[in-house]
């Protein structure tokens, strides 16, 4: 469980001030030191893990070009470490492992560096720039998963800009309001209990409860993303957005282009593309990418099924779009009339993902007990 306390919000605000008030050559090093101090205070375990993983990747990057075994080995090692924490492994002399703050997102960033370094897609930069990228506080705890090329471009042209600071402050205010006003005063005490109290135990009731859970998750996660994007803007960086009105999506692939976009894009580039390129099977790539997203949420049979459910939805959506493209207009009045139908169908499909996969999970467990 990740806890973002008010102290974290104020610490990040102080880091924004540091990033402008110090002499220019000290600004980004000060941000990196502030990030380390933040982790030392809030999540020492995260700092300990990163103190091993970051130097390892920095050592490998100059040697990794076209050395597939090194890149795949290190990426596999980082993914295995994250999986170990997710699975709650027990080490001798220690209790069960818990995922340290920000480790998921740091693992994604490190794998991005390794894969793009192997492919020669990384812009040339020094260790200081890489540390500034990896130890950039706003998106560190819960994303978005920003990329090195965009970060370096902003780093090179970074100048104080009042308009950007204003945009950032507005974004921070909106994120904060989502979390403390909308969520704490309306969603948690009113909406979620109201939706989960109807027709309990039936599929319809579970669908309504899922609507409450998805709304809560959206407001909470998009509020935190607003804080990260806002703080980054206030520091002079435009980082990847995470949400773009996902519940207005007109199809299931469209939903995944709007929901937690930085993770979806990461999975497209580093899971879907390699699997599809090696196997020449597009739908296998979609299935593996969605299973990775599912298992990232929780390593369990239910989330494996959840990933496969969404993969089936995306595959069916692509198949239908290809089959009916000659008959369906891309623009015009009919397309505008059909868009709400697509939005409603997508919404129902997404909401049904929780009750459907929970029931499948329960059925598979019963079946396994009978067979055993």
């Amino acid at each position, binding site marked *: 469980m*990740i*806890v*973002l306390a008010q102290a974290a919000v104020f610490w990040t605000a102080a880091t924004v001030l540091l990033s402008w008030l110090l002499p220019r050559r000290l600004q980004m090093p000060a941000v990196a030191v502030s990030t380390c101090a933040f982790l030392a205070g809030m999540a020492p375990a995260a700092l300990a893990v990163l103190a091993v993983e970051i130097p390892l990747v920095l050592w490998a990057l100059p040697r990794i070009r076209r050395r597939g075994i090194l890149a795949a080995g290190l990426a596999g090692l980082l993914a295995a470490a994250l999986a170990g924490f997710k699975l709650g492994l027990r080490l001798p002399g220690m209790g069960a492992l818990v995922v340290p703050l920000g480790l998921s997102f740091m693992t994604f960033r490190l794998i991005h560096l390794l894969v793009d370094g192997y492919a020669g897609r990384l812009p040339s930069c020094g260790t200081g720039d890489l540390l500034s990228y990896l130890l950039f506080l706003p998106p560190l705890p819960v994303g978005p998963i920003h990329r090195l090329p965009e970060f370096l471009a902003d780093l090179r042209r970074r100048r104080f800009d009042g308009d950007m600071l*204003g945009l950032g402050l507005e974004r921070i205010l909106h994120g904060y*309001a989502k979390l403390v006003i909308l969520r*704490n*005063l309306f969603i948690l005490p009113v909406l979620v209990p109201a939706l989960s109290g109807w027709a309990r135990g039936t599929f319809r009731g579970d669908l309504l409860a899922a609507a409450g859970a998805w709304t809560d998750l959206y407001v909470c*996660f998009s509020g935190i993303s607003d804080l990260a994007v806002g703080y980054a803007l206030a520091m002079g960086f435009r980082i990847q957005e995470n949400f773009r009105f996902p519940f207005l999506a007109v199809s299931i692939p469209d939903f995944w282009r709007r929901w937690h976009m930085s993770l979806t894009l990461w999975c497209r580039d580093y899971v879907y593309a390699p699997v599809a390129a090696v196997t020449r099977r597009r739908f296998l790539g979609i299935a593996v990418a969605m299973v990775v997203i599912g298992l990232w949420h929780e390593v369990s049979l239910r989330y494996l099924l959840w990933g496969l459910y969404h993969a089936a939805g995306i595959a069916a959506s692509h198949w239908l779009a290809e089959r009916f493209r000659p008959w369906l207009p891309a623009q015009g009045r009919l397309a505008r009339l059909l868009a709400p139908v697509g939005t409603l169908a997508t919404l129902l499909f997404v909401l049904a993902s929780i009750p459907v996969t929970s029931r499948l999970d329960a059925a598979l467990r019963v079946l396994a007990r009978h067979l055993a």
Partner: protein
Amino acid sequence: MHAFLCRHLPRPAANVLALLWYALLVAGILLCWQRNPAGFVYLGL
């Protein structure tokens, strides 16, 4: 919000409305702090 208001209203009216909106949000946040001064956000990822 300010950019949105500027697109649809004359600049002075957009400025005033945006300021009122920000004041409302800040007041709401302060009210929530008063009710719950402890940590406020959790996200299980």
